[in-house]
């Protein structure tokens, strides 16, 4: 007779709406509204933490992320607190994005509508056209591989994180019925798909539980305490006297946030009514709980004025303390590019972090930085890139642990090691933590963070007929790619010499000259032999798992001996050297 009792599933499903448990350590996570950002954080933003977003110059992608966070909160029915000084909080809330697929009541909504963005649209169009034109075209377009069929079983390289399709049931109003049962917590998706081209619907705005704090107003109230509008002559003295007695702006904002948390019952330690009996501990009460999402737009911007820098440190410290014992999380954007010492004045793209910002980062649990190409002073080559900017992750949340959960769970942060490593690679992959360069792009309908690939040198259409004189610089730019070593040589059929690119090679100069001589001297017949044995080793598979955009041509090796050395990739040196110099380091 077994003494084990079957675990009742109903006891587990009582999280607040829109939350889920982390797969790694069981923390309660909420979504930031952007699936790729959730992935970077290790599944979502843990409840009780602060995410600091360092904004970009000239563009407003930081505020866009903040809007995603707030909008996701509205979807889940969470309380949203919006603090803003530069822009009025009402304006921010009104400009939140709408849900993808939830069109206005008049337009039709197709069942099972695909809300993917432009690229997927194009791909589907092409496939449709191909199907119409003739079934014969399918083989070239289709996923089914006829020649390289051994690769079909390989896991596809994940350069981005796909969001799940939107929950169809309770979101779509086909008939315009206004009465619908409130979705139960289990029905609310963890991360809803949003459409940047639409605005939040009026209905959602009404039902949203928002608290707006305009720090500009608070600032004026603080300053009005100093009656210096009239007094001209000794206003310095008066101001300093008055200033010492006035609470400053950050203190005011913090007080308002604390008040909201207490009133809404989000805090577990600060109770609204201390005399009331404490609610029975248990998971039953959790399902009715909501999360309080705090969004602060452009903290410490020039319009936020504080007497000492310590005000902001105290604010963040106190806020973190408040949130740790509440069901709440905060996302704060800061225009970090405005800070820096005099020496760093010219490096205001954020590449050198000012000590002030660094200290602020220590006070927050997670920190990311957005660097848009439009705002950066240099970087002309990335104009051709499909991305709108770079996304730097400075810190991920680590609560009660030593390693952040995103090392194991994140696709984006650790993709190189996880995505395509063979069994022999997984050990080294986990610890080496192939740090990807991440870039972000904003399409019509979504904001996506992906691993950043440089486009192929010179663009796809350029035909290479001579060696690039500046390939040295292009090789160094390629070293930004993922750490897996790869050799890419593109050789055109014919007597032209190819240019040789390799990451991390220390012998680039000699390699190039050898490649050139290889092209000219060693291929009298103009024949190019391709030796590639798929499945020979995990390393080969790892190479082939690289993003297709980067591969310009097949790996070629011209064998001067004419013999076949299957299983090896090598490039012979110039005519003189007989030894095989294997330039690929494994």
């Amino acid at each position, binding site marked *: 007779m077994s003494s084990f009792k079957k675990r009742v599933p109903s006891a587990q499903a009582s999280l607040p709406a829109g939350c889920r448990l982390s797969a790694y350590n069981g923390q309660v996570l909420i979504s930031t509204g952007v699936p790729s950002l959730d992935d970077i954080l290790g599944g979502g933003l843990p409840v009780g933490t602060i995410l600091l977003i360092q904004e970009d110059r000239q563009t407003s992608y930081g505020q866009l992320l903040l809007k995603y966070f707030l909008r996701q909160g509205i979807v889940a029915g969470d309380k949203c607190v919006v603090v803003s000084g530069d822009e009025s909080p009402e304006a921010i809330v009104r400009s939140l994005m709408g849900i993808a697929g939830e069109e206005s009541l008049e337009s039709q909504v197709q069942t099972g509508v695909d809300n993917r963005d432009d690229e997927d649209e194009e791909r589907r169009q092409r496939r449709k056209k191909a199907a119409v034109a003739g079934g014969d075209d399918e083989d070239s377009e289709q996923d089914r591989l006829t020649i390289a069929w051994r690769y079909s079983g390989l896991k596809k390289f994940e350069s981005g994180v796909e969001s799940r399709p939107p929950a169809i049931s309770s979101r779509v109003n086909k008939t315009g019925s206004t009465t619908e049962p409130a979705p139960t917590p289990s029905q609310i998706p963890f991360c809803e798909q949003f459409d940047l081209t639409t605005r939040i619907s009026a209905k959602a705005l009404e039902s949203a539980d928002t608290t707006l704090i305009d720090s500009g107003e608070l600032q004026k109230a603080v300053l009005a305490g100093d009656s210096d509008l009239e007094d001209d002559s000794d206003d310095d003295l008066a101001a300093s006297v008055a200033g010492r007695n006035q609470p400053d702006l950050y203190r005011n904002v913090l007080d308002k946030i604390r008040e909201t948390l207490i009133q809404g019952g989000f805090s577990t330690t600060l109770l609204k009514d201390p005399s009331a009996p404490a609610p029975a501990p248990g998971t039953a009460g959790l399902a009715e709980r909501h999360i309080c999402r705090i969004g602060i737009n452009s903290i410490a911007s020039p319009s936020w004025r504080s007497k000492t820098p310590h005000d902001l440190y105290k604010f963040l410290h106190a806020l973190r303390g408040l949130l740790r014992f509440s069901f709440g999380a905060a996302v704060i954007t800061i225009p970090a590019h405005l800070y820096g010492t005099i020496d760093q004045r010219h490096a205001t793209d954020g590449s050198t972090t000012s000590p002030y910002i660094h200290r602020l980062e220590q006070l927050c649990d997670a920190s990311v930085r957005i660097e848009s190409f439009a705002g950066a002073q240099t970087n002309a080559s990335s104009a051709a890139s499909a991305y709108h900017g770079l996304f730097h992750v400075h810190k991920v949340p680590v609560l009660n642990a030593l390693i952040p959960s995103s090392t194991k769970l994140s696709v984006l942060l650790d993709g190189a090691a996880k995505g395509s490593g063979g069994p022999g690679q997984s050990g080294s992959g986990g610890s080496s933590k192939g740090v990807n360069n991440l870039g972000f792009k904003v399409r019509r309908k979504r904001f996506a963070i992906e691993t950043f690939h440089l486009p192929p040198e010179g663009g796809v*259409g350029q*035909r290479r007929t001579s060696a690039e004189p500046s390939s040295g610089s292009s090789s160094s730019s390629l070293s930004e790619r993922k750490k897996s070593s790869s050799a890419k040589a593109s050789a055109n059929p014919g007597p032209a010499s190819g240019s040789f690119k390799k990451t991390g090679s220390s012998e680039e100069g000699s390699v190039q000259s050898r490649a050139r001589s290889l092209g000219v001297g060693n291929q009298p017949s103009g024949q190019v032999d391709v030796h590639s044995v798929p499945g020979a080793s995990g390393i080969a598979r790892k190479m082939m798992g690289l993003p297709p955009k980067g591969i310009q041509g097949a790996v070629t090796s011209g064998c001067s001996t004419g013999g076949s050395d299957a299983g090896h990739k090598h490039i012979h040196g110039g005519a003189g050297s007989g030894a095989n110099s294997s330039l690929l380091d494994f």
Partner: protein
Amino acid sequence: MAPILEKIMAGKEASPFILVKDTLEQSGQVLGLELLSNSPSDHAIILVCAETAPDRLLPLVKGNQKKAIVDCYSNPLGWVKDITFSTTAARDATFENTTTTVSLTLRNIRKATKVITDLITSQRSNFTIYFDSLSQFLIASVPDTFNLLRSITALLTDTSRIIAIHHEDIPDADSFLPDSSSKPQASNSLAHIATTLITLKSSEALRQDQEDFKRGTVTAKEFSYLTVHGNAWDSAVCEVEHKRKSGKVARETNAYHQSTPTGNLTVVNVWDVVGDMPDIDKMDLEESQTADPAANLSFNLNLTEEQRKAKNDTVLPYLKTQESTGAIYYEPDAADDFDDDDPDDDLTI
């Protein structure tokens, strides 16, 4: 495609806040005044004089718009109390438009903010406000200057503009404090709220840099604030960074040239003024379109129908292994002989 500077000067590109950053090497006053002169005729012009005397600035502004002067030049620190001003310009008979003058001290910028905003609202029309130097304001207090600019932007209508000249090399109130790294930098913060940022560079200095670059040498520059070739009287190079309403940022390097007799400013291509500059893209760059790679080849890469059919009918090797996994399909060659005996049988060990 017209240079963006030209579009901004003509008013074709709406830009509510134009910030001109200049240095000792190249002054921005010429450009600033030119921008001001191009404002529409129905605008009220408000000149905030902090650096130049009002009666010197007033004749330099071309155009017949209604003007108001905020005089921060005569009494910036409030040393002279209760002085009544009557501008010499108003006494001048050639000026038909009455110019109102308000004088301010820069000791208390919050009060100045109130005065200026009152002045603007009293004008009751679209306005263009011109700051001939923000440095005096910034030396007094950086956050208050921000509030001043913020309050003015709050009053902006569709076509109203703020044109401000900011001297990059003059430090502001915060720079030398020990905690300056914890305060946002003034010039970055100004650039943050400006919709157009024009940075002026001396064309002669750029030309010399280019020549050095070509020669491969770097001439040792003597430490000096002013150089002989600074502030060329007729031309300068501007780097323009313009934020459109759609959010896109356009960045260009243009130059301007002022012709002697007429005094008209024309925007020219920077290559004309400076010479060959490989760093700066020429204005008319051909667009790099991803052309069809199979377009201009001397051989045909396309397939006809029959060829495609034949291609699809080819029997690929390992076809059977695609369908089933594991089983080894061996098709014997002509040279193979099938002998079922164990070849080790005749070993006599």
